[in-house]
């Protein structure tokens, strides 16, 4: 039983390190701001989630075990989409990506709907 738990912890560590490596390479090598956002969000969920799962398994092999790590996992899984949403809004606002198409019912996206005096960025260059 102990051996099975230890091997499960090691497999979780390997999966987590694969995702961490892929996310870091994606953050470094992709060529567009919005594309670059895609890879590191996997580090925040699957990579660290697998590390924490390995920590849970390993704590059950040598001591009586602890489930504290589930709290960090829940916190990360709740907050990762929120920060990713904020970063996407920053990218749209700074126009460091292609502006998304006009929404069907409003006239513009809310993050672009600021008064002209508050705009510290250049208007979009028409290609």
């Amino acid at each position, binding site marked *: 039983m102990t051996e099975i738990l230890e091997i499960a912890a090691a497999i979780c560590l390997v999966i987590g390190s694969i995702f961490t490596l892929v996310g870091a390479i994606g953050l470094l090598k992709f060529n567009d701001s919005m594309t670059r956002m895609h890879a590191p969000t996997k580090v925040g969920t699957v990579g660290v989630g697998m590390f924490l799962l390995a*920590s849970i398994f390993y704590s059950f092999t*040598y001591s009586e075990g602890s489930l504290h790590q589930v709290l960090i996992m829940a916190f990360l899984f709740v907050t990762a989409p929120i920060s990713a949403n*904020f970063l996407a809004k920053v990218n749209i606002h700074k126009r*460091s990506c292609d502006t998304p198409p006009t929404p069907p019912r409003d006239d513009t996206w809310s993050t672009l709907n600021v008064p002209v005096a508050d705009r510290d960025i250049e208007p979009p260059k028409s290609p």
Partner: protein
Amino acid sequence: MSFATSFMSGALTIAFVIAALGQIMCMIRLVIGPSTGDRILALDTMVVNAIGLIVLLGIAQGTTIYFEVSMMIAMLGFVSTVAYARFVLRGDIIE
């Protein structure tokens, strides 16, 4: 040393090396990042990688005393990411 123990120690070493490598890659993106969003994203990923490194340290030493540390780093990382993004979006953090 049984097979499981040696497999575990090898996987732990690999995970340490890869998390440190990912931290260095994020640092490169933090330096060269062309736009502000990329720099905030690199900082956010560095916080997440730091949580991973601390969790791995807890596994390596066989203790659970690093739980509070990683919890605090997770909270501060989220708050700082939101604050940076909000500063870029609105020019102010608390209006």
